[in-house]
């Protein structure tokens, strides 16, 4: 016990110094916003902006009603799109699993050589958008579904690899230790100590990525990598707005459906 008899009624969450810095920080943020606004509006032609509602109404009018008779023609490209997403995800996941085990600190066979390589693969895959991958691959392996599948797969390695290696690093070390204590071999330690722990994460990540890939694969056709995007581009080129509307509605429906499936699957396993 100390000798204090009068306890202070004043208590501050932050020191005055910290408060000053907070205010300066906010001020800088506002200044940045004002400056950005100026840069943004510098080249704007205000006549066009003023005209925007009328233009929007014009295009909107030409897009309506959607051309329902176009629907049968879209079914095959839609099927292609779903296949691109599914096969691409499958390929990406298959390639991502070994990369994730090499990248995770607690499972990597070599901290100084393989781990940096695996991390580089993950970063490289993630830093390039699927559309860019598709552009490159159309040039390399020619236009068509295969280019789309490979593009989606390459893009998925990074996403799945990163989330999976984080899940591997977050496993409970005590469970792994207990498996090691039985005299299990390294492969058995992975299969009994680590795999059961990361399984829910693995399925969750894969289905989530599949869901994202459905969305990404709808635009791959724009660069010639097959699927419904091809039809979208063709319709845009000939200014067939009712067909564009039909395609957008179909894409929306597919994405909603895939989100629902992915939510259900994740709910079932977690």
């Amino acid at each position, binding site marked *: 016990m100390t000798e204090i008899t009068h306890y202070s009624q004043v208590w501050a969450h932050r020191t005055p110094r910290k408060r000053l810095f907070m205010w300066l920080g906010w001020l800088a943020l506002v200044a940045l916003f004002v400056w950005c606004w100026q840069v943004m509006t510098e080249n704007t032609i205000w006549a066009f902006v003023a005209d925007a509602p009328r233009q929007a109404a014009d295009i909107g009018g030409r897009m309506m009603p959607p051309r329902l008779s176009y629907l049968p023609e879209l079914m095959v490209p839609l099927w292609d799109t779903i296949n691109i997403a599914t096969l691409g995800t499958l390929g990406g996941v298959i390639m991502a699993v070994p990369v994730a085990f090499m990248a995770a600190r607690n499972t990597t066979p070599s901290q100084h050589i393989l781990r940096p390589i695996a991390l580089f693969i993950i970063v490289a895959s993630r830093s390039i958008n699927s559309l860019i991958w598709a552009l490159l691959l159309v040039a390399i392996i020619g236009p068509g579904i295969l280019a789309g599948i490979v593009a989606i797969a390459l893009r998925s390695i990074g996403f799945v690899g990163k989330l999976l290696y984080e899940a591997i690093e977050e496993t409970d070390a005590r469970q792994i230790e207990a498996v090691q204590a039985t*005299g*299990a071999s390294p492969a058995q330690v992975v299969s009994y100590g680590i795999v059961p*722990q990361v399984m829910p994460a693995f399925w969750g990540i894969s289905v989530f990525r599949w869901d994202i890939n459905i969305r990404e694969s709808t635009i791959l056709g724009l660069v010639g990598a097959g699927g419904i995007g091809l039809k979208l581009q063709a319709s845009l080129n000939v200014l067939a707005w009712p067909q564009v509307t039909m395609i957008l509605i179909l894409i929306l429906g597919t994405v909603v459906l895939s989100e629902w499936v992915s939510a259900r699957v994740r709910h079932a396993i977690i």
Partner: protein
Amino acid sequence: MLHLKGLGKTYKTGDVALSDVTLEVPKGQIMGLIGPSGAGKSTLIRCINRLVEPTAGAVMLGDVDLASLGKRELRRQRRRIGMIFQEYALVERLTVMENVLSGRLGYVPFWRSFLRRYPPQDIQNAYRLLDRVGLMEHADKRADALSGGQRQRVGIARALAQEPELLLVDEPTASLDPKTSRQIMRLLTEICAERGLPAIVNIHDVPLAQQFMQRIVGLRAGRVVFDGPPEDLTEAALTEIYGAEDWHAMRAGDAEQAEAEAEARARMEALA
């Protein structure tokens, strides 16, 4: 059976966790290891099966020096040592049966463990052990569906599935309530007696240690400061291990707690 000779562990940071621990555990003896937090109890038992690498001394299990083995041979020798953990350390998402069978991992090839196709005698033995620890009807439940006491019994069955010659037990009751703790300790001591198994039990509940252990070793700052039967664990000895504390008051407190528990139980029974 187990003979530690001058065992030492100094961490890379320079912290000395164990120094010059020399102990002999004969066949069939249950030895309690007590000491304050950070005294090196956990490090000591982990140095025996080398989940922690000792930096000095020898660990003789029979004629084999575990401290000097290569990786492959160490794995073979680990099969002889069953380990039971503080927070059970079961693989939570596997079933009870898979957890018990995982005690056989050191004996079966990878494909058998991967496909869960264990030899029939292993499966029979696993069922026998589950029956022994009273979990026969829970065999196909997932480990995370069980209560704490049940999980620890799965942990015991897993360790026994190895057909070990020595049991290492790390704070088996630290996450359990007093009643379950006593049940688990009773089960452990019974099983050790049945099989003539020697065991080293880390435990920080002194009354529990005195009740169940045949021999108690006190560890303080990585050194053995007490070694004797539970009766010799006087207040002077406890002070030597834990530092000054009013032991008499603590024991009185234990008695009070036991009384309160008994009273609560009586009330519950009256309600039921």
